């Protein structure tokens, strides 16, 4: 089977990603381009006897790279040389898009021109004579609608045919004088036009030629070539596009009148964000509960039963039950939340509203030295830090991106809320005020971190705001679900590898040396005792507190269950008779109930996910109330708020910003958490000492 490498190239927002989705279906992968923080999307299609490998290049307006993602696209096209370029054009903006087409033609790589959004163009009175266009450039021209998928599959036979016939586009003809000099610069006879232009404008030995051109045109070679490209693009446009002036109003203009309104714009934005959060949490929480129950009441007993039947040793049974099911399974319960957040985020992105948020909010954000585009990831951080960090991909410069990644972990997420509500109720008469203040402290720490970073490591000035606002488009449900699936697959992969490995390590720490009965005798207990002096200034000199932080690195709320174990609270696990069939039936019923509850939540105007459940840890509450003072309780909450005690967050940071950044940030967050914890303890001790 032959492989064909196809690159999708085009301006931003022309629908390349949607096109790729329709072409590759579920065989789509997301990852990162090596060495940079730019997202890479690729997919494979089997067609006839070929495997077509599609790569979605970052959107670019010109082959003169500026930002990181533009460099990625440029390097791929010039050094990796795909077998074929699919140049995707947004037909309503054809004149602008043709500039990139001209630059791509200079590379002399076989190409197919895809006229996308033809329906939108027709509504605007733009008609393209595609045969004429095809004749002029010597490339095949096809029409598609990437929103609905119309005409997309028809690309495949053309890709194979162009690949086999090696048909090259017609050579571009620039003006006579320039062409003559380019001919003279030719040495092997095989150079592409792009190569010739680069040689002519950079190499010393062609200085003579440059001077002669400068005498004729009265400008530099660089400027001459640019003007030629613009002129060519304009010429093609005039030749192939017929415009009728229509009086029909553009729907996007009408929607923008409301959504970007100077007064209503921001209240509408706040409402939209509220709905995004409400739906994300309320819709996913019944499913999260269900997965939790499914693992505890079905998967876990079933596996143990199976292991008993095979007759494996006690150790293996415990590794499976506690490390794999307890650790990895726990992370799995977040799957519905992540899926729904991605769904909402993709809806905002594909509909065209996301860039408008950046535009609306930049007026406030830039005063803080932050780019308007930073706001969305920061807000998402209140939902879950993990997708929030992934969402920083929309930022152009590495500086802005790293700055926001360093802020996100201080946005308090629901996992922290679980811990706060447990502790706050023990020690304080007005827990809501305490919890609210903790959220504020998180935001302040984030701003402080950004401030310090801007004054030290990331000194560069704020990047210019240059952005295109795409027209509003309603994405199809199929497209959204496919995008969500791509991210879910990625999450599952990580849960199966990195998170699995970390769970096993932490389990080993808690259970080695062999034969330990009590956590206090394990390695973790030993480490906990060793590090407890570190926490002594915070009023947390009890080794049991410091030891509970070790397993809590998986996710913060684990701190509660691990405390329960370490404080040796009796947990009433009644040995029920396990019947697989009966249990499966029960799980089926509760899944149906979860669906019902999720849809009811959707139409309930009040958010339900934050209702704090009074849990089964009552026994633990009593013990903690006796062994900690309110001041040290507060210190513990502050520490856990700021310290990035979350494997998922560290893992995604590692992937997006690199190993060094992730580890340094972890150490930094520990130090900040410790310092503010100390402050909270001191102040608390003064207030509550009498």
């Amino acid at each position, binding site marked *: 089977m032959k492989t064909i490498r196809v690159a999708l190239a085009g301006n931003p927002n022309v629908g390349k990603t949607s096109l790729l989705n329709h072409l590759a279906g579920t065989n789509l992968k997301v990852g990162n381009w090596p060495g940079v923080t730019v997202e890479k999307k690729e997919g494979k299609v089997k067609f006839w006897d070929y495997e077509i490998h599609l790569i979605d290049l970052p959107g670019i*307006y*010109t082959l*003169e790279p*500026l930002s990181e993602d533009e460099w990625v696209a440029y390097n791929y096209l010039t050094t990796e040389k795909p077998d074929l370029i699919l140049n995707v054009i947004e037909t*309503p*903006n054809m*004149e*602008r898009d043709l*500039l*990139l087409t001209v630059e791509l033609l200079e590379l002399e790589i076989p190409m197919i021109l895809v006229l996308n959004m033809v329906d939108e163009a027709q509504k*605007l009175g*733009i008609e393209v004579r595609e045969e004429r266009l095809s004749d002029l450039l010597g490339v095949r021209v096809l029409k598609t609608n990437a929103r609905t998928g119309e005409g997309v599959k028809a690309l495949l036979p053309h890709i194979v045919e162009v690949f086999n016939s090696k048909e090259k586009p017609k050579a571009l003809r620039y003006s006579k004088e320039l062409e003559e000099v380019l001919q003279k610069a030719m040495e092997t006879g095989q150079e592409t036009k792009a190569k010739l232009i680069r040689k002519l404008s950079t190499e010393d030995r062609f200085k003579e030629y440059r001077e002669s051109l400068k005498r004729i045109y009265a400008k530099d070679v660089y400027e001459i070539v640019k003007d030629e490209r*613009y002129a060519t693009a304009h010429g093609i446009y005039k030749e192939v596009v017929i415009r009728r002036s229509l009086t029909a109003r*553009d729907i*996007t203009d009408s929607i*923008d009148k409301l959504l*970007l309104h*100077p007064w209503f714009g921001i209240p509408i934005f706040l409402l939209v964000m509220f709905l995004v959060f409400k739906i994300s949490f309320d819709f996913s929480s019944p499913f999260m509960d269900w997965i939790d129950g499914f693992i505890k009441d079905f998967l876990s007993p079933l596996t143990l039963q199976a292991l008993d039947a095979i007759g494996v040793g006690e150790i293996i049974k415990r590794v499976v039950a506690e490390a794999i099911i307890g650790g990895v399974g726990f992370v799995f319960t977040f799957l519905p939340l992540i899926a729904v957040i991605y769904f909402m985020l993709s809806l905002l992105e594909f509909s065209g509203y996301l860039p408008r948020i950046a*535009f*609306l909010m*930049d*007026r*406030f954000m*830039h005063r803080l030295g932050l780019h308007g585009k930073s706001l969305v990831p920061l807000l998402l951080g209140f939902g879950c830090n993990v997708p929030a960090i992934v969402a920083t991909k929309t930022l152009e410069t590495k500086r802005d991106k790293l700055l926001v990644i360093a802020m996100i972990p201080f946005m308090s997420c629901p996992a922290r809320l679980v811990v706060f509500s447990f502790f706050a109720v023990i020690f304080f008469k007005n827990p809501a005020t305490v919890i609210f203040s903790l959220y504020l402290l998180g935001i302040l720490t984030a701003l402080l971190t950004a401030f310090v970073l801007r004054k030290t490591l990331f000194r560069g000035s704020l990047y*210019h*705001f*240059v*952005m*295109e*606002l*795409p*027209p509003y488009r309603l994405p199809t449900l199929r497209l959204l679900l496919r995008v969500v699936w791509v991210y879910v697959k990625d999450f599952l992969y990580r849960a199966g590898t990195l998170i699995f490995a970390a769970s096993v390590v932490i389990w080993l720490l808690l259970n080695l040396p062999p034969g330990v009965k009590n956590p206090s005798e394990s390695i973790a207990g030993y480490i906990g005792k060793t590090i407890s002096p570190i926490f002594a200034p915070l009023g947390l000199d009890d080794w049991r507190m410091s030891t509970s932080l070790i397993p809590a690195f998986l996710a913060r709320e684990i701190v509660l269950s691990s405390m329960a174990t370490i404080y040796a609270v009796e947990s009433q696990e009644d040995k029920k008779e396990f019947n697989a069939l009966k249990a499966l039936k029960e799980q089926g019923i509760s899944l149906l109930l979860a669906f019902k509850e999720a849809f009811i939540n959707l139409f309930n105007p009040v958010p339900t996910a934050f209702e704090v459940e009074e849990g089964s840890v009552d026994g633990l509450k009593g013990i903690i109330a006796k062994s900690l003072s309110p001041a040290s309780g507060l210190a513990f909450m502050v520490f856990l708020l700021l310290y990035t005690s979350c494997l998922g967050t560290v893992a995604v940071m590692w992937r997006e910003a690199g190993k060094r950044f992730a580890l340094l940030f972890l150490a930094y967050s520990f130090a900040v958490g410790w310092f503010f914890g100390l402050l909270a303890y001191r102040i608390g001790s003064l207030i509550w000492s009498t």
Partner: protein
Amino acid sequence: MKLEEIKPGQEVMILNLSGKEDILEKIKAMGLRKGRKIALIQKVGRNLLLKVDNSRIVISREIAKNIEVQ
């Protein structure tokens, strides 16, 4: 007149883009070129929202200062 000085709703033609910044090349490729007609839709904060042909483009005032229009 500078692009920065015109009022929302006004339609103007670009006379000249000056300045040496790389970003100018990008906005030229986005369609903001000599001789093109553009309309200012809105001014918000440090940014201007422009309509260029069928696309909507946001640029900051800093850049608009370098664009001469009529």
